[in-house]
């Protein structure tokens, strides 16, 4: 819902070519990563309880239970509660969903769910578990919190199998549309050994530098070049920045040149974007084409 914001920071990484966006987006990504960096833990006195681990995501605003506590809670839960409420606590044939249960959400450390577990809910057929200890209740609470946070933390959702197409048809699409710039024996040799299928799917469609923040960085491809013609002066180089009012480049010596575009006789700017072909193809793929091409590329190990 509320975009503003953050999905741009972790879904969308700036393409590696220079653009008006790159400075901003790169800065945002960096500052965002820094904000998530867990602070160094303070020295802990001997015998003190370990503190809860750092929050894994900006989406999580409550303490994350210790993994081993949640695991013990899961064992207890599955044995005592899972039959009715489902092994993932999302509800079963007899018991309601506990992940989105208001009582479970309001609970912090078992203080609300504990009495329900111990006394049961006789009119709904929930038996009492009177012998459950305080520690066990806290462990079950930790397990339920971990299930809630798994549902909340969409940044960690696992993508299922994406290799569902027809490799031969994908190869034919590749020959028609991609072979002008790319070759399976050349730049794409071993691409599927370097990128997992999900990363490869995003990168062949449009070479973003990261996929969901994971996977190895792919070696930089061709830079975006620009030719600026100002009167009789012609300068060529790597595009460093462009907006509606100025453009700048680095020439072959590494020297920086920038030009105003909001002047009476602005220079002529010719940007050679190596990713233009990827962008032009986006409206042309059917979803079947996308799956076929990926299934072909996955064979390039």
């Amino acid at each position, binding site marked *: *819902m*509320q975009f503003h914001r953050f999905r741009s920071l972790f*879904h969308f990484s700036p393409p590696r070519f220079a653009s008006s966006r790159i400075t901003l987006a790169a800065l945002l990504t960096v500052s965002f990563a820094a904000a998530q960096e867990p602070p160094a833990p303070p020295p802990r006195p001997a015998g003190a309880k370990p503190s809860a681990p750092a929050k894994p995501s900006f989406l999580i605003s409550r303490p994350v239970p210790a993994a081993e506590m949640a695991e013990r809670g899961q064992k207890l839960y599955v044995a005592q509660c899972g039959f009715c409420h489902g092994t993932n606590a999302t509800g079963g044939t007899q018991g309601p969903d506990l992940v*989105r249960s208001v009582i479970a959400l*309001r609970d912090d450390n078992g203080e609300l769910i504990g009495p329900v577990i111990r006394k049961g809910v006789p009119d709904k057929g929930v038996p009492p578990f009177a012998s459950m200890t305080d520690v066990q209740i806290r462990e079950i609470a930790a397990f339920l919190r971990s299930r809630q946070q798994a549902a909340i933390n969409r940044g960690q959702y696992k993508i299922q199998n994406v290799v569902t197409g027809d490799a031969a048809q994908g190869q034919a699409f590749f020959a028609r549309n991609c072979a002008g710039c790319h070759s399976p024996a050349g730049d794409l040799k071993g691409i599927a050994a370097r990128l997992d299928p999900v990363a490869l799917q995003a990168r062949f*469609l449009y070479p973003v530098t990261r996929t969901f923040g994971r996977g190895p960085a792919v070696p930089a491809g061709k830079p975006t070049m620009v030719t600026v013609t100002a009167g009789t002066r012609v300068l060529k180089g790597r595009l460093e920045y462009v907006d509606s009012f100025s453009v700048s480049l680095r020439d072959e010596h590494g020297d920086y040149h920038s030009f105003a575009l909001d002047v009476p006789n602005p220079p002529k700017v010719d940007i050679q974007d190596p990713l233009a072909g990827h962008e032009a193809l986006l409206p042309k793929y059917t979803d079947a084409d996308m799956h076929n091409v990926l299934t072909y590329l996955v064979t390039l190990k």
Partner: protein
Amino acid sequence: MKHALLFLAAAIAPAQILDPAKLLQPPTDTWATYNGDYSGRRFSPLKQIHTKNVAAMTLAWTYRINTGPGGGGGFGSSIKATPIVVKGVMYFATPDHAWAIDARNGRELWHYTTPTKGGIHIGNRGFGMYGDWLYFETPDNHLVSLNARDGKERWKIEIADVKQEYFSTPAPVVIRNHVIVGVGGDSLDVPGYLESRDPETGAVKWRWNTTPRPGEPGAETWPNKDAMEHGGGMTRMPGTYDPELNLYYLGTGNPNPVMAGQGRMGDNLWTCSIVALNADTGKMVWYFQPSPHDTHDWDAVQTPVLIDGVIDGKPRKLLAQASRNGYYFLLDRVTGKRLVTKPFIPVNWTKGIDAKGQPIPDPKKEPQPDGSLVAPSSNGGTNWPPPSFSPDTGLLYVQTQSSWSIYYLTDTEGKPQGWGGRDQMLTARSALKAIDYRTGDVKWSHEYPGRGFGMPGVLSTAGGLVFTGDPSGNFIAYDAAAGKPLWHSRLTTAVSNGPMTYEMDGRQYVVVAAGDTLYGFAMMASWK
């Protein structure tokens, strides 16, 4: 003696700061609501700064906020609020913080801060005002009332439960003695609602639920009670208001689970809808649904802009929305009947338009386990940053993005939870587009070089100008009629709010936020 004292006290009691009549006037010396007035047009009648002299507009002042270490809650300290200006004082807020500054020179008058119980600290749209009292919402879902004179807290009342993953960002809208508040948060499938609160006590006066309960109208668009109760539909943006019709217009948020629709088959009313509510009762009078059964996070919260226009030679009360799903809609705001449905960016997710003028979603373009390639991305063709409508040009100015994403369904269970999916954005191009309100045709477009997008709002003025930001950090004044940039200034970061304008001492100011700083521009040279 006693009587004399009382009389004296009455005599020296100051007039209330915000005269309610100002809420019904176009914004000039006052900008009293998030959108400047009730119409959502963000059009100012001021014209001291105009197309011929804007080149000489210059910086008058800056004000940089300081929220202390960790004050941005992980999001940095970005000002997304549109400041309000009343009697020479500017009021604005960020999550857990609020300020008053002198609108003449940016000098701080007070800074209020409140401890938080959590919630996603993504943004805050600012204040609503009633007499001497200011109202804003916090990420942990409290409605806070402050004394405008000194920033002292009068009360702080919980309006939603942060433990259920609600977090609140909208600017309250004050209509007579209603403080209209909305809620946000779509992490874990909670139901949305809108409330009127009492300006003195904060007590609930009415409540409107964005999803029906069993047996209510709209329930037929959900498969069961559980889906309705977890159906989302947040009320995260301020709405607009027609005083003659006494109708409050609101765009509602997306349904939940956000990207997995298999557990909520049907249109999922009243999510992703434009609704007209009676301001005194909260009862819905009509609805129109831009995105039936949304599965792409395309909420319909974009400003429902009220236009008094002419269609086929007849004056009409109209409502326009450039919606996140990429479509422009023009409705009759008396009846909710649709007049125009037209995409303003490339879209590939519909099978057509139904008899009511609503897009028909293509099930094949819903998120799929192995991915579906869809335009636009979940960021949408536009997003929360407010557009502007100029009655002088008849154009709606909208910050747009043409974009692509792969949408994945990650939760294939019959009863998914949370988002149930995610999208991988591929690329985006940004442009400011000027849309003819009568036809939906794009009359002019200024495309920004490079990829990516910003989140700037838009302001238009009777000086023939449109003010907005670009993705590179420029604040730009355009010729409203032709779309040519006439002036710009590159700020420290991209524009992060909707620009606004006001007049003091005979001087027009234009104020915009970029990240943690407010910038005030004006014609600063002495003039006669």
